[in-house]
């Protein structure tokens, strides 16, 4: 069974989407480790180390995701889990910006998949299956 760490990063308390993601991923046969809202990068990374996670899915809805996610890939590398898949989605930047550009920025930061507002979780699951070789 593949293990996915999920949670909401930074000073963000949006809990509803987080619960939906947990529900759907569990239903789809994943071992979901939910670090919950108001989580720091360390919370995600420590959880991924102990549970030997295959992917980390970061949610952010309050606009500051870009700052909260800075150096997350580098921090994973430092912590010895540099190969873990990093996904991010939600309202991850301030204001209305061209998503193509946003996606590029996050990919440069080391994220494997970047999702705009309104994405269906099913789309991400299709990517998970592909990325984790299922």
């Amino acid at each position, binding site marked *: 069974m593949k293990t996915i760490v999920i949670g909401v990063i930074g000073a963000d308390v949006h809990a509803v989407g987080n619960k939906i993601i947990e529900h759907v991923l569990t239903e789809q046969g994943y071992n979901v480790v939910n670090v919950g809202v108001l989580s720091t990068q360390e919370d995600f990374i420590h959880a991924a180390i*102990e*549970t030997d996670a295959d992917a980390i899915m970061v949610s952010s809805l309050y606009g500051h995701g870009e700052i909260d996610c800075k150096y997350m890939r580098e921090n994973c590398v430092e912590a010895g889990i540099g190969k873990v898949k990093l996904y991010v989605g939600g309202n991850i930047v301030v204001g209305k910006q061209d998503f193509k550009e946003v996606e590029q920025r996050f990919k440069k930061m080391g994220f494997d998949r970047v999702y705009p507002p309104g994405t269906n979780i099913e789309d991400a699951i299709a990517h998970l299956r592909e990325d984790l070789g299922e």
Partner: protein
Amino acid sequence: MSVHLLVDFGSTYTKLTAVDLEEERIVGTSKAMTTVKTNVLDGFNNAMDKLKNTHPDMKEITAISACSSAAGGLKMAAIGLVEELTVEAAKRACLGAGALVNTVFSHHLSRKEIKQLKNADIDIILLAGGTDGGNKECILHNAKKLADAKLSVPIIVAGNKDAQDEIEEIFEASNIEYYIVENVMPKLKQLNVKEAKEVIRQIFITKIIEAKGIKKAEEQTGEIIMPTPEAVLIAAELLAKGHEDVEGFGELMVIDIGGATTDVHTIGAGFPKRSEVIFKGLQEPFAKRTVEGDLGMRYSANALVSLVSPYEFKQYSSYQHDIGEAAKKRHENVDYLPESDEEKEFDRALAKICCDYSMSRHVGQVEVVYTPLGNMYYQTGKDLTDIRYVIGTGGVLINNENAKDILREVNQKSNKKLELRPTDPIFLIDQLYILSAMGLLGQKYPKLAIKLMKRHLE
């Protein structure tokens, strides 16, 4: 016709408490120097003679239970993966079982660390790492390293269950004494220390007691059933929870200031009390014990004064002389008893610092997070603001006329606002020094133990 005798083989004193089971009262207590180096029974017999002399009409002793912290108590090493997670869980298992944890390692063990383990004075190693189904590579690496090192101390394996079989093979092949128990953190942030604690106690009873030369005592006292700090924790838990129709005190704290360490025990969930507070980190044990190895009145006096600046020291005391000298005197002469008012004042200051610092390290803390929805708070550790009773024990507090003054240091402070300390507790002192004895008695007679504690803590 039945007196139950409770014995505590302490590091300095062997203490006896005689309880009359029918009349439900404490007949008497006595103490004598612990004699581990010669024959541990000498100290026991001396204390026994004293007890019989002061209570010549004492009925026949029909049962004895004993605990011990003699010969350095129980020392353990805790090894895990991530410091805040399985390392912390492993530490809590050791502390909850009454051990002193002086060697702690995280992630992959290095050669240097193995060397440290070899040279360290430890009785048992607790090896954790990984949630069930999680990381097993690290614990396997560490198991191999430990096996190669051919350590002679028993190893308790309490990590990822997926790695158990392989670890079993590794240890079997190297003739390591090992015990496999449930994972101390089976799921992320979930603490599960019960089985690990039980096995620690079993090893303590069967092996450690013998290695420390205390086994001989069992000829007269029957089995020594647990380390003393565990007995205190059990007593505290009983007193808090009550038993059947005997009501308990509710959430409480026990603080034990000793010569080398300060122990803090709290019984209570300590969950966040407001909706804008979010709990972070590893689950807290309902009965939690922390031990501070650098906070003590004698052996640790040097370490203690090095923690505070002369300016800070003045906040605790009006002592005028050289602080370093006064601490050194106590460190080098652990039996030192202050006679002048000034020296007594210095001891009071040390005790206050022990109280204040151990509290800072034991209680939970909050941290403000500014969110678009307003201020939220992270809470790590236990919220102890509503703790109702704080009980002081240990020689310093019991023999001090200002004991309650010293204990007041646990209270919430204006300069430590983010610490979740008790706000307005009732202070009690363990005048007769019976807490560990009541933990032992409580194994068989929980109701009586609670009644006696309620009567004698004042």
